[in-house]
């Protein structure tokens, strides 16, 4: 069997802003792809296969690669489109990992993007609920339950946040602090969307309350943006660059028992903040990567956190501390850029959310931190290993990737 090491050798981003009216999807993605080719010192001819993904209903296009991918260098190449909702970008990166580690391809271009201003993301999200609603009507379910869907993504998140706070002792002040941590990191990241240097928790606490406990200041923006990543075999990576970031392992876990149901409960009345599938995926990924003690072996973490509480919640679910410990760790300053285990140095999803791209941008940020190419937001400590996470579906899908400066196999 081919057991090939996989390494990230290049990362590229498009501009990330609310509305890109100057380019179409193919052009916006090309910005990221061309930057990525340049970063790795590779050309389209060096690429053996391509993995792509976005959330098609957000732009109102079905498989945009059909007319777009030719512009990214896909002509005549194997192309696989992987889409899994919020986890899409992570799933695309996983696809790249498997394409190389299978031994079938040497160099794979991973592309994830979202151009939300082309469509209506809330409408796109509504079809998640409306499909369920249609099915439930056929079964004679009382339409009153539809009220629970009224809040869109925020409506889902508030239940989770309140539940997490109850379980962990996290306070609204902690949520404010998470926003400050992320938005000030984002200010150092040229590819982030919401940059708020010098933001204070008091300012966040004054933003409009959307639905308790979530305020405007605790929520991600809607972003247009694309991310591209070149992965290749360990052998080729060593020849290309001095310090490749190896993808040691990838794992996903699905658990629809926790899927959002009536009035915020899971379909089996499971608490949406439990996120056992995240713990399982993390365990699988750490095991494959040979990591026995993630709390001490992981140097940087990029949990997927479009809502402030999720940074703390997923920090716990990624097994970086015990359940309920994250708020105190935040208070200790350990999550800051100069801390022991910096979290979301990129600014995280709460600062930039081009949905399909977001879960891949977690992987690419960890890769950049390992490569030492994160610029002003490079964490102070030496980075050997990092974990990148993605979350999606309706609170039920989790993807985890572990990256390192040393390869897994050879």
């Amino acid at each position: 069997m081919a057991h090939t090491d996989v390494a990230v050798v290049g990362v590229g981003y498009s501009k990330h802003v609310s509305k890109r009216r100057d380019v179409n999807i193919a052009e916006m993605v090309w910005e990221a792809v061309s930057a990525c080719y340049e970063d790795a010192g590779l050309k389209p001819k060096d690429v053996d296969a391509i993995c792509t993904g976005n959330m098609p209903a957000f732009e109102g296009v079905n498989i945009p690669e059909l007319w777009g991918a030719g512009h990214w260098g896909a002509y005549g190449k194997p192309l696989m489109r992987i889409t899994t909702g919020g986890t899409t970008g992570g799933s695309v990166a996983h696809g790249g990992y498997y394409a190389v580690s299978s031994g079938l391809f040497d160099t794979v271009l991973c592309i994830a993007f979202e151009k939300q201003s082309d469509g209506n993301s809330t409408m796109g999200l509504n079809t998640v609920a409306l499909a369920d609603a249609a099915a439930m009507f056929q079964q004679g379910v009382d339409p009153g339950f539809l009220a629970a869907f009224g809040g869109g993504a925020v409506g889902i998140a508030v239940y989770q946040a309140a539940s997490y706070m109850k379980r962990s002792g996290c306070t609204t002040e902690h949520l404010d602090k998470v926003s400050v941590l992320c938005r000030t990191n984002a200010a150092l990241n040229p590819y982030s969307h919401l940059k708020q240097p010098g933001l204070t928790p008091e300012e966040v606490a004054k933003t409009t309350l959307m639905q308790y406990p979530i305020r405007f200041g605790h929520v991600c923006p809607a972003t247009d943006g694309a991310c591209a990543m070149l992965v290749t075999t360990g052998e080729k990576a060593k020849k290309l660059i001095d310090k490749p970031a190896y993808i040691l392992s990838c794992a996903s876990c699905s658990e629809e028992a926790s899927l959002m149901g009536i009035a915020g409960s899971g379909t089996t009345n499971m608490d949406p903040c439990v996120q056992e599938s995240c713990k399982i995926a993390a365990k699988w990924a750490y095991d494959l990567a040979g990591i026995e003690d993630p709390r001490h072996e992981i140097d940087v973490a990029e949990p997927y956190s479009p809502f402030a509480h999720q940074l703390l919640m997923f920090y716990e679910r990624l097994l970086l501390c015990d359940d309920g410990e994250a708020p105190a760790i935040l208070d200790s300053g350990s999550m800051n850029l100069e801390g022991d285990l910096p979290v979301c140095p990129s600014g995280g999803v709460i600062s930039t959310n081009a949905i399909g791209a977001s879960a891949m941008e977690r992987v690419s940020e960890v890769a950049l931190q390992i490569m030492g190419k994160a610029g002003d937001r490079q964490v102070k400590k030496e980075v050997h290993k990092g974990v990148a996470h993605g979350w999606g579906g309706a609170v039920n899908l989790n993807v985890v990737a572990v990256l390192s400066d040393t390869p897994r196999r050879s």
Partner: protein
Amino acid sequence: MDKGVAIIAYAQTPFEADANASREIQVLEVAKTALEAAGLKQEDRYTVISATNDYCDGRTISNMRLVEPAAAYKKNESKVEMDGGYAAIYGLMRILSGDHQVALVMGVSQASVYARNIPGIMMLDPTFDRQRWLLNEVSAGALQARAYMNAYGATEEHFAGVAAKNLDNAARNPLAYNKLAGADAAKVLAARKLYEPITELMLAPFCDGACAMVLASGEAAAKADKPVWVKGMGFAHDSYLTERPLEEMGSLELAARSAYDMAGITDPASQIDLAEVHENFAHEELMAYESLGFCGKGQGGSFFDSGATLLGGDLPVNASGGATGANAVCATGLARIIEAAMQIRGKAGEHQVEGVNTAVATGQTGPCAQENVVFVLGGE
């Protein structure tokens, strides 16, 4: 592929116009049957890859709500938004990586729940082609048919002949939907015209259906009864339909080349015993003969005339009836792979072809067969 990956089990629902079951029920049925046939239980370790399309399913994140029915609860699960053949490719990659030993792959679509042409129209370039409202998958297929006729002199009679063959073959396949025992070219030509030169019987019908397949590493397949080995595979992306010569299936040719290289096939016409081709229209099967190297460029029509691709011919194509017999968008290519595996195992029932040891199967995504996947399968 040294140690290799094998198909150890599969399952298909009947493909129907309006199934009396939701997609969840159809997926549950095939996932359960395939796992049982593979001797696997829900608590065993395996990875799950599904192929669905958000537009066909009318829901964002179409793998949602499929997790439990697809036996993917607390499994390492992902989704390709392409033909089911790509789910097989991704499952294969995951096994070859060494991280997984077994993959359950599946595809499902229910045409009865979406407006027929809409998912295809949403595939078009939104700036120009979608706005004009002229192109859809069928009208684009008609342009492709005409381009192929103009380039190589293929005729409507050829297309009708291919469709008649497939409809007749489908009559022997209990899972097919469009069946017409004893169909002939005249009958196909007399059917309702959709877009010149395509008649209703030349078109792969839009169906409800699901299929699933279990792939296993060489080690995990050792205990299996009659494993069917993946000898080679390939897939490729072609340019958008307005930016390429429509008389060629370039991506199918590239995918076949890669699959043949892997499988050590140098003379496909003599080394391959049977083909299951994903043709959305009769003319695409003729084009596939050429791209798969069964005959020279432009000779698809005369190759068909030779009778080689009939059920009793030297190289039967679509003994199952192909997509002309049954087409549930994201399941169709995977169904071709399963049909090819059934033939190699000698389990194809009434449409069984004698002595099949090496077979090729294809799947496609996008208007005018823009993206193609090819599998070469073999027995022991």
